[in-house]
């Protein structure tokens, strides 16, 4: 704010910058939402300080130390550890297999509008592209609006306990997310190189190969790696509904009050997530140079 000659500060934003018409109304609505959420979500910090709760926390803390680091237990946990990685990798692969084709179809610039479809003014041809576009967007939306835990719960019912329902859950839920992100990336390519290729007589495939893909594939790979990081964390938790991996072991040990085993498992999980984050971040840094 620059002072005017009279010393009063001047609003440096032009008058056209809109202010909310009823600031008090918005403030009121916000406070009401906050209050309602507080009540309905049963937020009660007192419960945390309840003697019973404190006792349970203290018991968990006391019994979990020292962590169970016997070679026997660690040897047993090797398989679930590897299983967690396998679930995340296979889940991400399936997510790509679902997300890539649906994401391509859900991109308006590839299916029905823009430079690749300049002459399709006839309604029949526009609809021909519009239909798969709308359907794939709806499918992707349904896939990602159901959380992977719920998917896992349903797949456990369908194919039984073990890592496979975890793989399917991650594949479907993340397929929905990846497809959405892929289509966002595709919609946002720089159109100028495409125009140049189009103007020199390149075919649609040629424009996609030399104009669209080089601009998008590095971003696809980078985002897919990031999703793989998320899949590691998710697959660890999916075990709680019986879908294999470290999560299932955490759940078992919890149920048997073997808190020292729980601590070991949480440490393993932490090490795994940190390692994957590190590897993935390095790879992404190399692939998606700005």
């Amino acid at each position: 704010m620059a002072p005017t000659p009279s010393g009063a500060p001047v609003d440096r934003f032009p008058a056209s910058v809109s202010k909310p018409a009823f600031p008090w109304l918005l403030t009121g609505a916000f406070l009401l939402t906050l209050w309602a959420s507080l009540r309905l979500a049963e937020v009660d910090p007192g419960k945390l300080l309840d003697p019973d709760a404190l006792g349970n926390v203290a018991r968990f803390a006391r019994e979990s130390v020292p962590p169970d680091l016997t070679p026997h237990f660690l040897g047993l946990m090797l398989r679930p550890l590897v299983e967690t990685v396998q679930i995340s990798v296979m889940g991400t692969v399936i997510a790509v297999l679902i997300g890539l084709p649906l994401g391509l179809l859900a991109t308006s610039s590839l299916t029905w509008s823009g430079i690749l479809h300049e002459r399709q003014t006839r309604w029949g041809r526009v609809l021909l592209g519009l239909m798969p576009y709308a359907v794939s967007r709806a499918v992707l939306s349904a896939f990602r609006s159901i959380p992977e835990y719920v998917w896992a719960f349903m797949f456990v019912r369908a194919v039984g306990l073990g890592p496979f329902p975890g793989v399917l859950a991650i594949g479907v839920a993340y397929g929905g997310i990846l497809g959405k992100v892929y289509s966002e990336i595709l919609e946002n390519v720089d159109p100028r190189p495409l125009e140049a290729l189009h103007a020199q007589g390149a075919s649609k495939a040629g424009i996609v190969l030399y104009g669209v893909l080089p601009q998008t594939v590095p971003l696809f790979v980078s985002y897919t790696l990031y999703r793989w990081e998320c899949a590691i964390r998710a697959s660890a938790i999916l075990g709680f509904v019986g879908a294999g991996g470290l999560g299932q072991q955490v759940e078992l040990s919890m149920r048997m009050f073997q808190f020292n085993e729980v601590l070991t498992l949480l440490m393993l999980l932490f090490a795994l997530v940190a390692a994957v984050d590190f590897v993935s971040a390095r790879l992404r840094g190399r692939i998606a140079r700005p």
Partner: protein
Amino acid sequence: MYELHELSKVFDGGTVAVDGVSLTVGRAEQAAVIGPSGAGKTTLFRLLNLTLRPTAGRLLLDGVDTARLGEEALRRQRGRIGTIYQHHNLVGRLRVVHNVLAGNLGRWSTPRAFWSLARPRDTGQAEQALAQVGIPEKLYARTDELSGGQQQRVAVARVLVQDPDVILADEPVSSVDPSLAVTIVTLLRDLAHESRKTLLVNLHSVDLALAYFPRIIGVREGRVAFDLSPDKITEELLRGLYAGHRDEERQLEPFSHGSNPFGRACRPLPGFGQ
């Protein structure tokens, strides 16, 4: 080469970008198009390279009415027209070799185009084109690591690989510094002359146009204001062309001191009767 009869382009919003332009451009002819910004020069070029369809009038390419062309035939005709843009319109993430070889896309089959991305086979062709524009050493550089002027050379190399009959350059030097502008304009002119290509250049700078082109087409408000050789261009004509565009009028100031200082500098290329 080109015959335009009362060609017009009205955009969906109702803006009349090109308004009844009639022109004839012969094979291997070289001409500069000048005019204030917003005059419709870029739209005219996009009509000429067949990426925009006119709303009225006829555009004949070698006697063929382009409105009658089907999708495939249109694509083949586009292959005969090479366009160079102000912002070079290259893919920055690709290596130079691929951006240059993309000039082949009008001819290549899809599998061929695909395999070339994996392992470029015609590197010799790309190398030769880059040598012609003076940067042979950049073959495997990442395109967005080059300077603006070098990227514009890559764009010219892409057109060389395309080997079209017409080169359309839409403000090719507006984003490079003045000394490089002269280099690129002369490069385009010489390349077009060597292989007898038609060259149409849309130029922001009047002195470049007058100094290097044997035919000057002035465009204002979507119409052709004049179409003359540079020695017939007078200060009044230019003032009329740029009237109301004060920034662009300023470049005419040298005209106020003595007669046309640029017309004399024009060196018509051999083979061009005025």
